[in-house]
């Protein structure tokens, strides 16, 4: 029974963890501009994150080594250092966006200026990191994040023309009003949002935090194979809501209130309230995950002791890193930069950093010294190699597309 509960809660975690402010914003923007013509990218991203998160989880469970220790060990201090700088910067941008996202969501319900909510949100994030047990933290955020199912409910209540939605999705047919370069720019952004490296840093370190061993591999697989696809479905529901309501009206998403507009139109105040709680929980969960990931990546690169399962005093540098990251995030937000814009930047840059994270995972998952009999099978290796090619293409294309399209405008 305990095992079933463990799997169930793990799945919820994955859903809550997958849909963060980056996915919310990018999916809504894409839905409002391109309809469902980019759904294939979400599917591609979900398969990719399933593949590499389960690999990273398996490596952590069998060898006890989390992802960034492996990156350092395989790439050496220089290449891993470059990856650390890039990942840490993206992590910081994402953390900034998530804290901003919490503040924006709270602003929607309270109409108190978001800048007043930012310190409150940041303090709450730190208190949870400081005091709350890892499992409790994961499960509460994951469970409440499930309220985002409200987007799916809203889609059904809107009663859209399903045939038309299908026609947009297969075969993908971008609206003729949009430039192809913008289409591909958003394809890369969506892919980056789905496969953000912090998800594997968090997932693999979480496996160490929960003291997984080779016995927990089934749980690892179940978490990944059910959680991430469900998260993907939520993403599609968000995009579909935007495609049904915002696309015909010609509204381009630039604020959180526009993202939830279809929900308010379909389900009224009650559904809106539930969805906003879901957004607060999902962004709060993601803020925790990105703050932890900034500590995980730096601590694992330098070999410091890390983890929430230790007393804070036994992982002093790890906790100091997280406090500094949160303070930097608050500092960035206090310049009154738009969190939505920060989010859009961070997902594109995460596409650039993907290869440096995913190559070492694939290499170590094939190393019998680490993995014993649990090395990758042929199918996983074949898929992994295909994905490496996709990841490299996306990474190379990201910056030129960003410049060519003026960040998609």
């Amino acid at each position: 029974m305990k095992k079933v509960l463990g799997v169930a809660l793990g799945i919820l975690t994955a859903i809550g963890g997958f849909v963060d402010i980056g996915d919310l914003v990018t999916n809504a923007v894409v839905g409002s501009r391109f309809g469902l013509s980019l759904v294939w990218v979400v599917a591609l991203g979900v398969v990719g994150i399933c593949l590499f998160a389960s690999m990273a989880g398996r490596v952590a469970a069998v060898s006890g080594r989390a992802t960034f220790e492996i990156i350092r060990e395989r790439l050496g201090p220089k290449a891993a250092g470059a990856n650390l700088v890039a990942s840490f910067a993206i992590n910081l941008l994402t953390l900034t966006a998530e804290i901003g996202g919490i503040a924006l969501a709270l602003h929607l319900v309270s109409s108190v200026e978001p800048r007043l909510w930012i310190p409150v949100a940041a303090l709450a994030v730190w208190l949870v990191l400081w005091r709350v047990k890892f499992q409790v933290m994961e499960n509460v955020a994951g469970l409440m994040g499930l309220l985002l199912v409200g987007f799916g409910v809203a889609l059904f209540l809107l009663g859209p023309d399903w045939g038309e939605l299908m026609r947009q999705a297969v075969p993908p047919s971008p609206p003729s009003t949009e430039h192809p370069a913008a289409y591909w720019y958003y394809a890369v952004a969506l892919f980056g949002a789905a496969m953000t490296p912090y998800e594997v840093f968090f997932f693999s370190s979480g496996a160490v935090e929960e003291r997984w061993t080779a016995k927990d591999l089934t749980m690892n697989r179940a978490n990944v194979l059910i959680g991430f696809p469900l998260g993907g479905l939520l993403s599609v529901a968000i995009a579909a809501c935007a495609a049904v309501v915002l696309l015909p009206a010609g509204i381009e998403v630039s604020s959180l209130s526009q993202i939830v507009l279809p929900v308010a139109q379909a389900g009224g105040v009650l559904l809106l309230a539930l969805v906003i709680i879901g957004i607060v929980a999902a962004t709060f969960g993601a803020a925790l995950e990105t703050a932890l990931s900034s500590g995980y990546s730096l601590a694992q690169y330098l070999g410091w002791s890390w983890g929430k399962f230790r007393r804070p005093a036994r992982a002093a540098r790890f906790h100091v890193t997280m406090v500094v990251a949160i303070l930097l995030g608050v500092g960035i937000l206090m310049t009154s930069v738009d969190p939505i814009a920060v989010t859009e930047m961070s997902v594109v840059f995460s596409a650039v950093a993907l290869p440096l994270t995913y190559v070492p995972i694939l290499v170590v998952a094939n190393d019998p010294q680490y993995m014993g009999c649990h090395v990758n099978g042929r199918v996983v290796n074949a898929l992994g190699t295909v994905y490496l090619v996709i990841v490299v293409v996306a990474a190379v294309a990201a910056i030129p597309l960003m410049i060519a399209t003026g960040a998609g405008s």
Partner: protein
Amino acid sequence: MTHERIVDARLHLLSRQVLDADGEPVRAVDDLELVGPDGQPARAGAEVRVGAILVGPVLFVRLFGGAVPVSRQPRIAWEDVGHVGTAIELTVPSDRLDADWVEHWLRDHVVGRIPGGRHDPEADG
């Protein structure tokens, strides 16, 4: 009978995680100090062995060049190493290692002083 195995310094030692006697992470191996068989500085053409694991500032030397004065170079003596696996396991607790002084300083002066800093998160819900 002891099993002999070949350890490739670059592959199996450098950048590996170092764990103390309790399994707590200490540092990653940033560099290795090679000494002659008699403990004297290594000489070209002569036999050498690993004298110590170097951590800390030497990492920046490897990344950017330069040099660290020997007296400022945190090291973990090779005699303290118990086992070389996917991590390098020491036979001493980290509290006895000078190489970990930053962690100890932050623990005693910053993190340990914040309320709840010594609270065990696994102890309650």
